[in-house]
């Protein structure tokens, strides 16, 4: 059980997807303008990451590995994740309209998010058990959520600032701010 919490902690802080592995940058920069959107996107990523791992881990262990077709991993995972997210979105739209209203719009955006695919692939390459994989995926998603929410706060300050040089306006200053925010997560990497 201690391992489980260690894995979650490591995934949230030490190997934070956005600020230390730099995956999932598109939604991180694109949807972090408002706090609500950032939080919604983050929760959707937690959901999809856990779901993707819950499906891809059994596929790898019980289908690809026994048949010795591990080289099909990339193709199998991306198709399964894409199909799964579309499926969940359709079911959610039909049966849980209120949840779809708040999370549904973000779901298609993250079908092919690199952080989701990387979490599914890294669980296999790290050799985690099913429970540990779920923990890693959950932690990775929470880390993404944390980074989104923190950065949405920083960004609201930047967007109000009038003193930014013209050529830095918009994306460049956002990236520089992201660089400084990523420094705060470096404290966890020092040994």
């Amino acid at each position: 059980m201690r391992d489980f919490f260690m894995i979650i902690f490591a995934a949230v802080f030490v190997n934070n997807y956005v600020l230390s592995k730099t995956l999932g940058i598109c939604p991180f920069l694109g949807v972090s303008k408002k706090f609500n959107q950032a939080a919604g996107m983050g929760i959707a990523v937690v959901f999809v990451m856990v779901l993707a791992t819950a499906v891809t881990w059994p596929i790898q262990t019980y289908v690809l590995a026994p048949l010795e077709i591990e080289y099909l991993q990339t193709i199998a995972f991306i198709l399964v994740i894409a199909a799964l997210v579309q499926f969940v979105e359709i079911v959610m739209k039909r049966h849980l309209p209120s949840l779809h209203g708040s999370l549904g719009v973000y779901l298609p955006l993250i079908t092919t998010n690199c952080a989701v695919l990387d979490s599914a692939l890294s669980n296999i390459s790290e050799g985690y058990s099913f429970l540990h994989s779920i923990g890693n995926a959950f932690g990775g998603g929470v880390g993404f959520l944390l980074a989104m929410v923190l950065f949405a706060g920083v960004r609201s300050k930047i967007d109000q600032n009038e003193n930014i040089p013209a050529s830095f306006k918009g994306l460049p200053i956002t990236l520089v701010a992201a660089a400084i925010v990523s420094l705060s997560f470096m404290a966890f990497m020092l040994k």
Partner: protein
Amino acid sequence: MTQNSKMSIFLKGLIKENPVLVLMLGTCPTIAKSNNVFNALGLGLCTAIVLILSNMAISAMRKIIPDKVRIPCYILLIAGFVTLIQMLVHAYFDEMYERLGSFIALIVVNCIILGRAEMFASKNNIVDSMLDGAGMGLGFTGALLCIATIREVLGAGQFFGYDLPFFSTYHFPLLQKTFGGFLVFGIMIAIVTKLTAGKAPLKKDFACQGCPSAHLCHGECKEEKEVK
């Protein structure tokens, strides 16, 4: 088509519509793997090869693939080529395979590839698509190399793994970390904006266009979000 326009298809990817610095596609691998020139060159060339092959295949099949299921078809084709490259790199360039890690597999979800498939290859013939793929792929490699050179020289005092006389004593190791990736990339974009005086077709709101799934939701996500 004349020789001239063929050339312009190839050249526009290099500078005018550079995928990284102007179209803002493929930001994740750019930031993550631009810490040294070796990684940048390896990842850039792998991506370029996948891009050329997938553009050609998608262009060849553009009349067969039904419009409604085109995105899953494209992803499947791209994933096939990525697996091919992954196996070749593992077999012949083992050191590069170790250093790039999961980023070779992650070429599948690189926005540049799906973006070019949707924007160019699905509408143009095979030769044009190949030239577009080559231009975009080399543009991506070039931009990665620029960022990687700055980060490796100033951050590690080396170039392609060889120590440089002055910089090996005075360097700034933080540039090798994630911090440097964000910082140098941000400054590069600022320089491009300055040089082009804001004329480059910078995507101001690249939330939707920049993401590979933008085509799945047809920008609906953006409109709905704005309504909220």
